């Protein structure tokens, strides 16, 4: 492992996991006052075991949101359906330009598993969630908030979801995604992006814009894919981790080492929040580690 990767323990309050240059923000910014959104914790963790798999999930408030006293806008959900042996994982990234996008992300994360388990089809499920999300957005002002919510307030979220069939004789995954949230397989130390989007990343002009077409949308950019699964873990994540994973060999190597096996959930959360200069977005990762297939 590179000497640029280390656990920082000597500085109180500093982020303990660093990959490469941590930058100044990750190491120097201290916690600020609480946000105006009392239902939005800085970090959210979950772990579970289902037949054939271990799950770790962590959502970490990004540096920019902490700095600007804004809430974490990523959300996730993990649901298991025993009759079909299906694990439904959903990860949503609220669009930062809208102040209530965490509500859109939370709604989508909660509603996608319901819709998928009802319809068994991503196009139908996400279309339904998209329509219901429009209604949810329109009624934002009727829900309790500390501060006044103006009429016509906007919110939006990206989405990546996976239905993982855990039947050991037919283990496979069906993935659906919009925009830049992503799903990855880790096998033999190598990462494979299951949600590669040629339209993402740099624009044709060689500059980066980061534009997304998030939900709710009149014409959502939903893509789907089916993949057989081996014994390697699968990860769903927001672009807070997906972007550095895609763009950095060092991040890929480091996370491959950290996540070859399932860490304890608290370690996992610290690792999801690794410090790296310039990467200040919210971070959410749900990892699913499979028990070895039968010979």
């Amino acid at each position, binding site marked *: 492992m590179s000497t640029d990767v280390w656990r920082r323990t000597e500085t109180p309050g500093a982020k303990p996991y660093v990959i490469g240059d941590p930058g100044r923000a990750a190491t120097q910014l201290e916690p600020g006052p609480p946000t105006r959104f009392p239902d939005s914790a800085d970090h959210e963790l979950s772990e579970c075991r289902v037949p054939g798999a271990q799950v770790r999930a962590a959502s970490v408030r990004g540096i920019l949101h902490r700095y600007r006293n804004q809430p974490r806008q990523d959300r996730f959900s993990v649901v298991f359906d025993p009759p079909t042996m299906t694990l439904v994982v959903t990860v949503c990234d609220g669009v930062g330009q809208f102040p209530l996008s965490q509500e859109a992300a939370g709604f989508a994360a909660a509603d996608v598993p319901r819709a998928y388990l009802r319809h068994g089809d991503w196009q139908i499920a996400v279309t339904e969630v998209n329509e219901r999300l429009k209604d949810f957005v329109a009624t934002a002002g009727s829900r309790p908030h500390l501060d006044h919510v103006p009429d016509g307030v906007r919110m939006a979220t990206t989405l990546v979801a996976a239905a993982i069939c855990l039947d050991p004789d037919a283990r496979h995954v069906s993935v659906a995604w919009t925009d830049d949230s992503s799903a990855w397989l880790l096998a033999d130390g190598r990462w494979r992006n299951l949600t590669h989007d040629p339209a993402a990343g740099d624009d044709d002009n060689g500059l980066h814009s*980061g534009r997304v077409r998030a939900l709710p949308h009149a014409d959502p950019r939903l893509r789907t894919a089916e993949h057989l699964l081996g014994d390697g873990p699968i990860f769903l994540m927001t672009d807070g981790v997906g972007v550095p994973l895609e763009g950095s060999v060092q991040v890929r190597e480091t996370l491959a080492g950290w996540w070859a096996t399932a860490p304890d959930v608290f370690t996992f959360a610290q690792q999801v929040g690794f410090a790296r200069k310039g990467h200040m977005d919210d971070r959410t990762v749900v990892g699913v580690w499979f028990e070895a297939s039968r010979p």
Partner: protein
Amino acid sequence: MSERATEGQVVMPFYIVCDVSGSMCGDMADLNAGVTGLRQEIMKDPVADDLAMLSVIAFDDAARTVMPLNFPSAMELQTLNCGGLTNYTAAFQEFHRAFEADRVRLKSEGKRVFRPCIFFLTDGEPTSRDHLQVFQQLLGYDPVTKQGNPRYPYVTPFGFRSATEESMKALAYPNFGEKKGRYFLAKQGASVPSLLKAISGMIGTSVLSSSLSGTVGTFQYTPPATDASPELEGSFVD
């Protein structure tokens, strides 16, 4: 720190293009102090210092990159010196050369580069005649025909002393789309030292606001507000 340690990083490049022609010779101490103060102001903010990169280009008869593009805390300050004419053409040619070289270098290091921003400071009318033609050839873009340079910069000019509104308005860019350029002209009676201090503050605020404008994937150039200083009149390009 190795390239591996920063690969994948998002970068917002800002270029400060300064007129150092002969008419500026009495203002060089204030101009140098403004650049120093701007760097210090951005360095105070660790978030902006992690995201924004600054470069300083000086022009008179010719143009040269005095301080190459770098993070503020990593910049090596150089003293700006004066003398010569006011060659806008050379300034745009040097920016074009410098940004293309910076962009290629940063992308080879695995960084993601946002659209560049130019803060253009001048106290006089151009002695070059072809600067608008050169700007259009090197940097201009037509969103309808998609001809020209798709990596066109945001340009925010600041004019004082002999600089005219017509000249500043012609430089503000883009002149299309949702984020049309804006330009600033000194009000009557404003002293140059005071103006340079105000411009430095406006640029600093713009860089800081741009760095904090969104999530990492969606930073937006936040130009100075048109009413940001009582000593400068801000206007939008038509």
